[in-house]
């Protein structure tokens, strides 16, 4: 029963630790861990035990799983994936991925 909350706790701890690093890649991994934690929280909001497929007329509604948290998680995964790819692109530009240096764009620094 306590596996889910413990997993969330571990993921959040790791995520927060990585977020506090200077390197962009580590920050991206930190965000990834945190979003996994969020997905697990969403799943836990439904019933975490195994339930039958939520298909109308085939499975009794009382025995079926709650499809809504699963739909939430699916949407969240898609969004996080898209942003993660963009963040990795932002990490790859410039000479290093340190967030203390601004990547050059070839523009005048005076503006």
């Amino acid at each position, binding site marked *: 029963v306590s596996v889910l909350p413990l997993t969330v706790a571990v993921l959040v701890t790791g995520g927060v630790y990585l*977020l506090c690093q200077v390197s*962009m890649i580590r*920050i991206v991994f930190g*965000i990834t861990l*945190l*979003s996994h*934690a*969020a997905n697990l*929280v*969403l799943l*836990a*909001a*439904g019933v975490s035990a195994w339930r039958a497929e939520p298909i109308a007329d085939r499975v009794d509604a009382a025995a079926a799983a709650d499809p*809504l*948290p699963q739909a*939430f998680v699916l*949407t*969240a995964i898609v*969004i*996080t994936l*898209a*942003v993660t790819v*963009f*963040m990795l692109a*932002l*990490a790859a*530009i*410039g000479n290093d991925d340190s*967030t203390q*240096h*601004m*990547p*050059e*764009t*070839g*523009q*005048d*620094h*005076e*503006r």
Partner: protein
Amino acid sequence: MSPPLLALFVVVPLAGAALLALVHQRIVVTTLHLAVPALSAAGGVLLLLAHVGSPVLAHGVGGFVPGVAIPLVSDTFSALMITVTSLVTLACAAFSLGSGEAWLRFFPSLTLMLLAGVNGAFLTGDLFNLFVFIEVMLLPSYALIAMTGSWRRLGVGRLFVVINLLTSTLFLIGVGLVYGAAGTVNLAALAGLGRDDVRVAAGASVVLLALAVKAAVVPMHGWLPRAYPGTSATVMALFSALHTKVAIYAVYRIYSMVYDNAGRWLPLLLVLVAVSMVVGAYSSLGERSIRRSLSFQMVAGVGYILLGLALSTTLGLAAGLFYMLHHIVVMGALLLMAGAIEITYGTGRFTRLTGLMRRERILAAAFALGLFSLIGLPPSSGFLAKVGVVRALFDAGPATATALVATVVLASLGTLVAMQKLWSEVFWGPPMEELPPEELGHHDGHRACAPGTRVRASLLTPGVLLVVVSLIGFVAGGPLWELCIRAAEGLQDSGTYVTEVLP
């Protein structure tokens, strides 16, 4: 306007975005780039008219059973927000045509996608969909921030993405907690649960925390003044009108619906808004360029707007809403005019600009009126907004009222001093030196420009028109105030909202 048409506020900008991603003819780009925000603003006005008769319009997308369907809900509050944000988007689109950014590949397309997300966030009646629409709004923003702006844009782009994804994750966790506690994320079904059920209150508070970061409430404001000035003026004006305001809108909506404006947590909010006003107003003093200075005034504005929610009386909510509408318009105006200066003179730094009052008479006059509006002097919408906030404060207890009126005055003084500094550096002083182009730019201490440099009309007009809107907000203050009162009553009366969404 019949309820199913509400979906058009999202569909039309999205379709426009898709079309603009494919078509590149100048005439098509210009037309769609201007027509879609204009249509959205016109739709907002139609909604406002419709709400005279029926205060709430609701539509379950796809015709599912109420409670299961994804609801789109509109009331006076959301209609007002749609109208004003679309108007500022229109001004930004017009400015981007003048500044040439509109001809960057995908720029107009991304702007319309942003508008679709914003309209969706204003209309949705469901917490999870709010998350989705905020993401729809943020994804094009990530690209916009990386496309145009100063050399810092990629660095601040990293900051902006990380902060927003982090808060979105937090938001999602909050949604999960609310769903776990209440079994629904439909706002109408959650009505009043935050007051009655501690678990829902705790879950929704995580959502509110995430929104507070997105709205840049002090002490979670640090990212905004760092990130926004790194973008171009067009994008900054767009973001200031849309992003933080969507977050504030959601805070208003969620606190009014879920917590039913419960008084228990309001003292905490009062402290936060008081600190926001003062810190934002005075932080401007340390900045040395126009847009950096203005970015802190955005933080101060968030304080004034949320002050209305912290009072949670009809007058207070109406004053907060009025301030929000005023702030969206005047911030857009000032930022677009700052952009016109930056594009024409190549810099927004105080040390490189001087004496623009004599060079750019129309711009200087409009900018001065915009600053009047920001500070809260007549004849501008800012005056009425501040009077409204102070008037609403009188109804609070005597100690609270005294302390907060003093805070408002103190913060306004800070804004006044900071904006005076901006004005005297940029607009007063000896006239700009005129140097031949080859001698420009490389030696410090020179406040110079090429001979005959003038701000083009195409860059000037959008900002000036927004200032005119702010002046109209002063002249037509009465009817506008009535609208805000109606929106505030709609926020307090969650019963009508609930019966419309869940008949």
